[in-house]
């Protein structure tokens, strides 16, 4: 689609739903899982049968509070559940339990900091329940599976008016939010399985004006990429409509992944009159400072703070730090190795190259492998002290990864220590130069690039154990000698 004619400013609000990683549902003890036979994880509570009594899941409540704390929110010290009433077959009770109000949600008025330092205001973090799944039946009609009904669902909504102004920021926000949720262990973050869902609302207005334009809400975004593309498409679509003199409708649009465009969804825009009221089956939640502080003090250091610390204290680049912060296990593994007086940069290099490669190939996480933080410390030290060179380092790592043997032991057992003595290296250099007389001639004729070949030959003679810097130096010296 064409870039817009006039200059517009976009405002993007983000509504994110995260299924909480609890073992049981929000108000009953039916297990939570993905997939499975339909209607096999249901009970009178989540089916909304008369006379059943819902009891909230403590873990879900604490997961939301932990998320709210990570997002710098205020915590509602007194908070209730409401019924949001509407009729739709994916909702067996005729209402969804949710949290209404400005300061009633478990968390409110917080912010998330993007890597570039911009703060995105968070309006609310509240707890509700997921709905069942509707599916079309082969011969027409629809059927419902209530396995997902009542799964604890956390809703995170950005501030209004929105701080996000383009598709990049929308994606960055979601990437960082997902990282925090996964980090805290409150959500598995699987967008493709729908455990993390994002519905941005997008509006544009001419530059220099104040009033927000008519917004559209976008659904069916199953990846970071589709969030970015979808928001970009909507901004351009709205601009094109306004440029051609058209008017925008407030509507819900679906994202079509295959042709990368949005389409108006046939959603019955019933009056948004949910008749919210406090759920009489659920009694209020009351928190005190010691309880909240207890949860706060048990919080792990968050990815952004870690990244800043790795750069400041260990001299890592932003990129390297981010690679260590893919998940909490990797970061903790790294920190354990550093705590054993390992060289942070050397350990980082091993982790993001050889270790990451081998783990990826084996489909393992760091702790599942034969490698411990102590292995990394030893290997990094062997490399830093030039006891072995990087080529041998790869072999040693591969062996340690396979057998679990310590790098020091592998090096000793196989006699892999780097040779730094001039004697044997000079001997090999002389031998190589003698058997490659014509190459030596070319070098002396000005083709200095051939030195690399000779260095390679010498390294080969040393079976990779010669100190590479020393070999380079000695080959040059020998060539310059006439």
């Amino acid at each position, binding site marked *: 689609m064409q870039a817009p004619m006039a200059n517009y400013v976009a405002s993007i609000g983000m509504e994110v739903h995260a299924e909480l990683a609890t073992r049981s549902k929000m108000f009953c003890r039916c297990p939570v899982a993905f997939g499975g036979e339909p*209607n096999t994880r249901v009970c009178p509570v989540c089916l909304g049968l008369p006379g059943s009594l819902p009891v909230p899941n403590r873990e879900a409540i604490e997961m939301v509070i932990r998320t709210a704390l990570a997002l710098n929110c205020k915590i509602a010290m007194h908070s209730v559940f409401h019924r949001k009433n509407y009729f739709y*077959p994916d909702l067996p009770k005729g209402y969804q339990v949710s949290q209404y109000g400005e300061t009633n949600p478990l968390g409110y008025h917080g912010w998330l900091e993007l890597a570039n330092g911009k703060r995105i205001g968070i309006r609310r973090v509240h707890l509700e329940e997921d709905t069942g799944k509707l599916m079309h039946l082969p011969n027409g009609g629809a059927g419902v599976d209530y396995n997902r009904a009542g799964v604890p669902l956390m809703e995170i909504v950005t501030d209004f008016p929105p701080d996000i102004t383009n598709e990049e920021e929308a994606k960055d926000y979601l990437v960082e939010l997902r990282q925090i949720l996964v980090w805290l262990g409150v959500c598995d973050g699987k967008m493709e399985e729908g455990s993390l869902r994002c519905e941005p609302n997008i509006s544009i207005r001419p530059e220099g004006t104040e009033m927000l334009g008519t917004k559209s809400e976008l659904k069916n975004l199953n990846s970071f990429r589709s969030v970015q593309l979808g928001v970009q498409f909507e901004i351009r679509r709205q601009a094109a409509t306004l440029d051609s003199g058209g008017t925008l409708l407030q509507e819900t649009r679906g994202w079509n992944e295959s042709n990368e465009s949005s389409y108006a969804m046939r959603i019955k825009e019933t009056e948004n009159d949910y008749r919210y009221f406090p759920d009489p089956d659920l009694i209020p939640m009351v928190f005190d400072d010691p309880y909240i502080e207890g949860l706060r003090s048990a919080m792990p250091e968050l990815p952004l703070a870690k990244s800043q610390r790795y750069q400041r204290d260990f001299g890592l680049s932003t990129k390297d730090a981010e690679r260590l912060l893919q998940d909490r296990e990797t970061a903790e593994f790294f920190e354990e190795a550093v705590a054993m007086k390992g060289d942070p940069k050397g350990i980082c290099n091993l982790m993001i190259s050889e270790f990451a490669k081998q783990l990826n190939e084996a489909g393992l996480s760091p702790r599942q492998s034969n490698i411990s933080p102590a292995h990394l410390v030893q290997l990094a030290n062997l490399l830093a002290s030039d006891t072995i060179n990087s080529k041998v380092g790869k072999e040693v790592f591969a062996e340690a990864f396979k057998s679990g043997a310590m790098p020091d032991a592998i090096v000793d057992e196989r006699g892999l220590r780097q040779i730094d003595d001039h004697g044997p290296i000079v001997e090999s250099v002389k031998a190589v130069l003698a058997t490659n007389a014509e190459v030596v001639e070319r070098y002396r004729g000005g083709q200095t690039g051939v030195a690399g070949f000779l260095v390679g030959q010498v390294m080969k003679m040393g079976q990779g154990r010669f100190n590479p810097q020393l070999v380079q130096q000695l080959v040059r010296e020998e060539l310059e000698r006439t």
Partner: protein
Amino acid sequence: MSISLEEVRHVARLARLDLGEAEMMSLQSELNALIGHFEDIQHLDVSAIDPASHAVTMHNVWSEDLPGECLTRAEALQNAPVSKAGLFVVPTILEG
């Protein structure tokens, strides 16, 4: 404060109640009588009483996150007017 016929119609629509005009008129007067009781309460001086958000004074009654027993699928579908392929069959709905 009293309830208009229009409000009765609106609430009936939200509750998916198909009411005739006569029924709505009779509900209107019943609801107005009910609201009237609350108006009586409005006259009481409650300035010295803390607002109650719930009928019971308990709070934080929670359950630990331990999966328990479910119904069997046959039991779950037992009351469904129609079921098919393990699903509750419902009227066709719009996408979304």
